[in-house]
């Protein structure tokens, strides 16, 4: 019997037992639908993490001081291994870095008139805004000149503005005081909201690093160096380069550890992705189990069907069906159940992830790969669980099958 006739035959057999065929499919439908939904939710949250990180600058590199001497270890901020000389050296020699900024920060109280607020002041170069993907909604950025002259100017985050200024008051040009140092507000940052770790990214004051180092901290050391790699893909090259240059300027011997640590956003993305990836895998595995159960359902029904139709099998054999014809008949029936179930499941899965996206506002991304994958799994389920009942049918003895009551 040729394939077209076999498919038509299987289709008709399912048509005769519509409810049974549907109930058998149900396992596959639920399995496929949940696999697709889970994968789209997983993929969606992964992508939303990635976009929120790239909004922080996905090619951002942070260099922090660390200790390379044995013994009592101090917190990074107390180690004074990074200096402005390092920034200069990197600016001069590094090829995979586009922009670079030192960072000296201090926590403290800021006062404006009768209002006060506890926040962090970050001393940086004008490029810092570019590296951190910060922009101004009002005012101007301080200039290189301001840096050179340790000008008493600053940029405010939205949270600081909200806490120091009455509603409607324009902060630009006003003077605020941080640890008794008066600073003139020259710009306001565009709000970035919470970071992925729940930090308020708007609770910040940015001033020239010279101002913070000389006037507030009175120090010659810097806490961090921020840099942008030429691209996200070249972050690793940039990291290696920074390491080489810093080890050289710090005169670290080959057998000694680094006295600094380099963190990249790429690492962060990897870490967060692996967490959501694990969750997705877990949920998909649970959904996958229902696919297996659906497959067992198909196997069960196919066994029943073979027993029920023993006489039909005997008749078909006696009028010239070979074992392989009978095998194909039942196998294709099983595959048809699973693939039809798969199609319905895909439709259901896609629509339920759209519903999740619109009702719960969860980010979902329906990937072709999840659809193709669940489809392949479906077809495989049909073949795998349909084969044994079909084989049982094909091995029946026509004489006994014809006499079966």
């Amino acid at each position, binding site marked *: *019997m040729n394939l077209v006739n076999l498919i038509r035959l299987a289709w008709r057999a399912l048509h005769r037992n519509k409810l049974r065929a549907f109930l058998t499919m149900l396992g596959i439908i639920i399995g496929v639908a949940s696999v697709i939904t889970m994968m789209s939710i997983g993929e969606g949250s992964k992508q939303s993490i990635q976009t929120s990180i790239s909004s922080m600058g996905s090619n951002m590199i942070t260099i922090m001081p660390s200790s390379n001497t044995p013994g009592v270890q101090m917190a990074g901020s107390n180690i004074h291994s990074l200096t402005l000389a390092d920034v200069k050296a990197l600016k001069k020699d590094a090829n995979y870095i586009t922009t670079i900024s030192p960072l000296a920060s201090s926590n403290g109280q800021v006062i404006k008139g009768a209002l006060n607020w506890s926040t962090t002041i970050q001393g940086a170069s004008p490029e810092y805004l570019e590296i951190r993907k910060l922009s101004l909604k009002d005012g101007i950025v301080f200039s290189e000149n301001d840096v050179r002259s340790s000008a008493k100017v600053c940029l405010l985050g939205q949270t600081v503005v909200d806490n120091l200024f009455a509603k409607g008051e324009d902060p630009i040009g006003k003077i605020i005081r941080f640890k008794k140092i008066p600073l003139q507000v020259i710009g306001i940052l565009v709000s970035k909201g919470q970071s992925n770790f729940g930090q308020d990214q708007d609770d910040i004051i940015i001033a020239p690093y010279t101002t913070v180092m000389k006037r507030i901290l009175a120090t010659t050391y810097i806490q961090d160096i921020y840099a942008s790699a030429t691209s996200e893909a070249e972050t690793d090259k940039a990291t290696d380069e920074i390491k080489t240059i810093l080890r050289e300027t710090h005169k670290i011997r080959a057998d000694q550890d680094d006295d600094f640590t380099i963190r990249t956003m790429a690492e962060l993305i990897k870490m967060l992705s692996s967490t959501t990836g694990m969750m997705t895998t877990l949920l998909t595995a649970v959904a996958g189990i229902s696919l297996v159960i659906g497959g067992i359902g198909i196997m069960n029904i196919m066994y029943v069907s073979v027993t029920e139709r023993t006489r039909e099998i005997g008749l078909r054999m006696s009028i010239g069906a070979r074992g392989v014809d009978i095998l194909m008949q039942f196998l294709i029936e099983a595959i048809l159940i699973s693939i039809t179930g798969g199609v319905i499941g895909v439709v259901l899965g896609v629509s339920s992830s759209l519903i999740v996206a619109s009702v719960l506002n969860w980010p979902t991304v329906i990937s072709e790969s999840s659809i193709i994958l669940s489809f392949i799994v479906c077809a495989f389920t049909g073949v795998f669980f349909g084969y044994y009942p079909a084989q049982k049918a094909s091995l029946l003895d026509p004489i006994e099958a*014809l006499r079966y009551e």
Partner: protein
Amino acid sequence: MDTKILDIYDLKREFKMGTETVRALKGITFDVSTGEFLTIMGSSGSGKTTMLNILGCLDKPTDGIYKLDGVDITTLSKDELARFRNTKIGFVFQAYNLLPRTSALENVELPLLYNNTIGAKERRERALHALESVKLADRMDHTPNQLSGGQQQRVAIARALVNEPVMILADEATGNLDTRTSYEIMSLMQELNQKDGKTIVFVTHEPDIAAFSSRTITLRDGRLQRDTINSNPRSAREALATFPETDDY
């Protein structure tokens, strides 16, 4: 006209039941020529069913020779046997064995579906033709449960004819039918035999059915007991005429 369709020599069939060996056929020899209408009779346990299974190429003899249309079936593989059944033999069963919820036409088409050399159009034409020859062309869209027992058996006969077999093999084909319908079926069989020259092998245990055939073989305890030529077979059409028109009521 005197070509041998069946050539059977010293046919034996043994079954192993645990440690015991049951000898169902103990050496049977006969042959059948084209155009014969043969009935095989015998009480239960005579080896009738075993004989039928072997004749129908569903089973192979333990020993002996069985040639159907000149081919020794003992040399054929399982798949070759299936192909042989598909092209050489037309089965008619006691319980009709039609596919439920499937139209008469599709039931008749069934053997041709297993023959890949026949296309959809030819399949349909031949099935229609076969239904015409059993006078059921007007019922081609009816499913078995919409047909009477006799009509169902006629559909089954059409199915047996559709592949133009060298032999029609009927297994108690009138066993489920009342006398009048049985005679109708036998009348159809006789017509196929006499008009179209079909070779028919009819297994039955009813002597009055055997009276319609041209030759009767009687089996007993796995041996051929009697082989009689019926030079003057009874006409089923005439026998039918003796029934009152409205016998059903």
